[in-house]
């Protein structure tokens, strides 16, 4: 394992310190317990947005703290959800009295820890609502499983719900927008290589030189099945097929196409995937109205990508276009 780190135990702490130094105009970093807030939090009258989860997915979530997106982010240890004693103060810091929305990726650990923190915050008089993100079509959604995971769609939920909060929507309205995004986005990912969690020191799974792992999540966990290496167009088709089927994409749909890198794949390859995805969507009669291509929700240095498709309507499009100023996503200001 070769990493630009000092000590597996200090990775999150030092990285967050560096992040705070690099974006001092944008965010405030609390070091003990660790959480990041928007410089001007709490913003008077605004619903607060808080998200968090294990580290190792950067720029998620700290990179999305700022105007038009999150008020606070709570990073856990690498691939380990944060604890209530971090989430609670982040929630309090984000609360301007209009209530706080927790955006939680659907993993047992995240759900349980945010649940506890929400109870504690409610006990301190904060109105907390939760938007659960579960956009991963690689996982069967069933009452008898942990349910679908939250993956690429999380970035879109955070951006669009963030814009709704910024324009002044109330607590229930922000939740409704977040849930609308979640209901209209599906994602599927592929890994070409595994990643190495610093404290583990060995790759999170073993993959042969000519195998790829279809249906991976974002925690270096193995995926749904393993197939021989294919070319980019073949992989793209394979990822998009269940996404479009589950979303029931039909002719005339307008979509946002999000090709996300898992961290170790060159941007040039993501554009090759994007190119094919546009063709496939065109064949389905859908129009790509908005796009996002890059490393936005990663798994350390894993090679691979995920494709997310979000069905747009006029309001979601306008909220997507609304100005945003965070470390990792910025436009209009």
């Amino acid at each position, binding site marked *: 394992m070769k990493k630009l780190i000092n000590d597996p135990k200090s990775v999150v702490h030092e990285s967050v310190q560096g992040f705070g130094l690099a974006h001092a105009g944008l965010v405030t970093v609390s070091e003990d*317990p660790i959480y990041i807030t928007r410089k001007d939090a709490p913003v008077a009258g605004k619903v607060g947005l808080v998200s968090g989860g*294990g580290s190792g997915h950067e720029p998620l979530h700290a990179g999305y703290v700022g105007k038009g997106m999150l008020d606070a982010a709570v990073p*856990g*240890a*690498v*691939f*380990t*959800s*944060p*604890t*209530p*004693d971090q989430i609670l103060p982040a929630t309090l810091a984000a609360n301007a009295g209009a209530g706080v929305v927790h955006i939680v990726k659907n*993993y*047992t*650990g995240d759900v*349980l*820890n945010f*649940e*506890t923190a929400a109870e504690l915050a409610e006990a301190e008089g904060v109105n907390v609502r939760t938007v659960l993100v579960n956009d991963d079509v*690689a*996982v*069967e959604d069933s009452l*008898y*499983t*942990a349910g679908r*995971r939250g993956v690429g769609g999380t970035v879109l939920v955070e951006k669009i719900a963030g814009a709704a909060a910024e324009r002044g929507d109330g607590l229930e309205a922000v939740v409704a927008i977040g849930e609308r995004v979640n209901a209209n986005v599906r994602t599927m990912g592929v890994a070409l290589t595994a990643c190495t*969690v610093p*404290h*583990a020191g*060995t790759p*999170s*799974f073993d993959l042969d030189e000519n195998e790829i792992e279809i249906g991976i*999540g974002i*925690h*270096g*966990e*193995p*995926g*749904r*099945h393993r197939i021989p290496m294919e070319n980019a167009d073949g992989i793209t088709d394979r990822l998009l097929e269940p996404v479009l089927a589950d979303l029931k994409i039909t002719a005339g749909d307008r979509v946002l196409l999000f090709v996300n890198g898992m961290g170790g794949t060159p941007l040039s390859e993501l554009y090759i995937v994007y190119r094919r995805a546009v063709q496939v969507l065109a064949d389905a009669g859908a129009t790509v109205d908005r796009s996002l291509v890059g490393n936005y929700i990663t798994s350390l240095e894993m090679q691979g990508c995920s494709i997310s498709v979000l069905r747009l309507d006029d309001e979601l499009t306008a909220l997507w276009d609304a100005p945003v100023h965070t470390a990792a996503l910025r436009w209009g200001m």
Partner: protein
Amino acid sequence: MTVVLDVNWTVKWLTLCAQAMAEHRIELIELDRAIGDSDHGENMDRGFQAVLAKLDEATPETPGAALKMTAMTLMSKVGGAAGPLYGTAFLRAATAVGDAAEVEPAAWALALAAARDGIVARGKAEPGDKTMVDAWTPAVDAAREAADGGSPDLLSVLVAAAEAAEAGAVATDPLIARKGRASYLGERSAGHRDPGAVSTALILRAAVGAAA
């Protein structure tokens, strides 16, 4: 020498838990690597090291106080699925034993049941879902049986729980996970042991060690 479940025993138990997590850290990481995200050993080790640090700061007055401190510490240091689940387990056990200076074998069996119920209440897993519940449930049953039986001494209750938990952990091998991160693997989760069930067995085995 008859063993009593007092605060000394509790502190020794927690100390041995921390020792076991440090020793089995890599094993638990490897188990989690196979069907999860390679952090269970790291999480448990971090959590129990923090418990040790707390014990260094101040010695708890009762077994219940020690268990409550452990609950709060695991809750705030472990994270992931295991943090809230073990946190709830220790919290329910603490509530069950109350502020007694010594806990009777039968009461301990009830405390274990309360811990298990807490885990089920939070995590919604059923036996057979390939989670730590598959170690806790047989342990709870075995402890109750031992406590109800002819010789309700503490050691036999602890040994029964540990052995049942260990067997329960081994029995997760062929199961297909239906809860937690391993469930994403579907059928590919079969053939691997659940890391949380193993850490549960380690914790209950440490309880035996504390009575030695």
